């Protein structure tokens, strides 16, 4: 049955999407601008016989997620930039112990306490590891409320497939805004894969299971790292992206999340001024859709990367393009959101 369209807030969509995606347990700590996520889940999770607990801190939250994930359940937390920084140690342990989980970051301005306005300045932290050691998270970047609803389930599936933490990287605007969206009033039945590795009590199993990231022997740890790296290589095949107006584009604008929407409007404005601009939107920020970007940009004369940061994803774009075409950058920081007209001006500049 087609769900009725209604106005849904981005954070509400994340919460309902988590329930629909089969989240068994949520642990979190309040922080603006993601508070609707725990607020809604505090009633939705018990209503579906699942676990909700407000932790004493982000540090405790991520470690509760670690415990629940080690026990084989679909566990998640949600926070915003400063809180995510506090979770980085736990993320590293979860990645090291090869456990699946979901972490939502509704980004706000930094560094430090920064602001509560929207930002994309946590890109490096999200896609380059973030905590200590050689590890990566699967990172998904939604651009509207419908994707905020759909991505928790996709993220859980990918996390389970690779036994790896996954992150949804949104921002204050996406979290706070409402849009029409079709969301079923009752979640569909989610299917959980078997987790024979779970530390959930032996119950007749012939061996014990241990969730652990401690590998004291250097050679063994090297082998463990090689195994992780091979897994990250394997993930590359699952990169996701979207393009708009890109087929005949002379300039490709690369942007994700809320910025991609502004960039798309800017592309349309630029086309009214006779500049063939098109959008390339990475949906998985890790694995970064390098090959699709190369193919999309093959016939373009130049690229422009737009971010709500001082220039983070632009490094991955430049690594991908590797000097074949000029890659310009336009970034705003601290919660300032550029208008489509402002981005259009940068497109005009970059196209010259």
């Amino acid at each position, binding site marked *: 049955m087609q769900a009725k369209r209604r106005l849904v807030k981005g954070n509400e969509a994340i919460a309902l999407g988590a329930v629909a995606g089969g989240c068994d347990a949520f642990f979190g700590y309040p922080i603006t601008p993601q508070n609707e996520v725990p607020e809604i889940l505090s009633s939705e999770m018990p209503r579906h016989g699942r676990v909700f607990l407000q932790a004493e801190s982000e540090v*405790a939250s991520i470690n509760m997620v670690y*415990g629940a994930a080690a026990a084989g359940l679909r566990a998640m937390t949600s926070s915003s930039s400063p809180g995510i920084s506090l979770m980085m140690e736990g993320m590293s342990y979860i990645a090291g112990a090869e456990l699946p989980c979901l972490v939502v970051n509704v980004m706000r301005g930094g560094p430090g306490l920064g602001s509560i306005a929207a930002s994309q300045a946590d890109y490096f932290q999200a896609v380059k590891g973030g905590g200590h050691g050689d590890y990566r998270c699967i990172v998904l970047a939604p651009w509207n409320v419908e994707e905020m609803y759909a991505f928790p389930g996709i993220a859980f599936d990918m996390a389970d497939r690779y036994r790896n933490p996954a992150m949804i990287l949104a921002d204050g605007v996406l979290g706070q805004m409402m849009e029409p969206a079709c969301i079923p009033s009752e979640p569909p039945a989610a299917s959980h894969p078997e987790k024979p590795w779970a530390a959930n009590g032996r119950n007749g199993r012939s061996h014990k299971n241990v969730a652990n990231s*401690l590998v004291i022997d250097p050679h063994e740890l090297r082998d463990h790292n090689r195994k992780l790296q091979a897994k990250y290589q394997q993930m590359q095949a699952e990169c996701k992206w979207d393009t708009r107006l890109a087929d005949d584009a002379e300039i490709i604008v690369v942007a994700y999340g809320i910025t991609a929407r502004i960039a798309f409007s800017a592309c349309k404005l630029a086309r009214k001024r006779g500049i063939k601009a098109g959008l390339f939107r990475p949906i998985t920020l890790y694995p970064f859709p390098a090959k699709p970007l190369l193919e999309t940009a093959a016939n373009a004369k130049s690229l422009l990367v737009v971010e709500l940061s001082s220039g983070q994803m632009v490094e991955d774009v430049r690594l991908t393009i590797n000097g074949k075409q000029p890659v310009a950058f336009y970034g705003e920081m601290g919660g300032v959101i550029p208008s489509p007209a402002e981005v259009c001006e940068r497109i005009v500049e970059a196209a010259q």
Partner: protein
Amino acid sequence: MSTIIERPGTQTPEGLNCVFEKPRAMSDKPFHYCPGCSHGTYHRLVGEMIDEFDLMSRTVGVCPVGCAVFAYEYFEFDMVEASHGRAPAVATGVKRCLPDRFVFTYQGDGDLASIGMAETIHAAARGENITVFFVNNGIFGMTGGQMAPTSLIGQKTTTSQAGRDPMLTGQPIKVCELLSSLDGVAYLARVPLSSPKNIKTCRKYMRNAVRCQLEGKGFALVEALSPCPVQWGMTPGDAIDYIDEKVVKVFPPGEFINKLND
């Protein structure tokens, strides 16, 4: 992951009675602990609890960062290795999702009372239905003998080389006394592991702490005052005497809270 090697168990040659054996919950891995350390004793008591209450098939243990970081190698049940201080949060995650499992943490004083104090207090305050086996030896053993929040006044450590100065670093934290004010706590007891008699008392306290969880009473913690002869710079014998003469004066033994209806 390790495969269980079936041991002969209680099979004994004809005419002989088995009077002592290793708990089935423990593996054959030799302990890495220093001479005179009581982690081995405490581990064995944990193993005895799992056997006695027949919990092997439904136990999830959480080990700490510290001297007991390899605890998962010494037991035969499922375990999760927590980051430093976070064992109560990890145990909370497991227990909330699998409430019918027996979930315990095994933590030292640096882990539980220094870096992990917030997790300790909040798990206790929530009345989290988990059992905490706490080893207090008043020092950071694994990292090389640095001062702990539980170090005694005047105690020489590698970071308080002239002896712990209360003007500089305050007084020792008394975990049982601190947690006593929290309504969520079902069981709190402290005992020195300094004699066979005290070890038997410890077993009794641990039994109570396990029962608290099995009966759904809430947070239970047993604090074992333990010797660390190597980092204290003493012989094992002197370290035991030090516990009985000095440590128990600051950390008085006994049951602080017992909500079992006995």
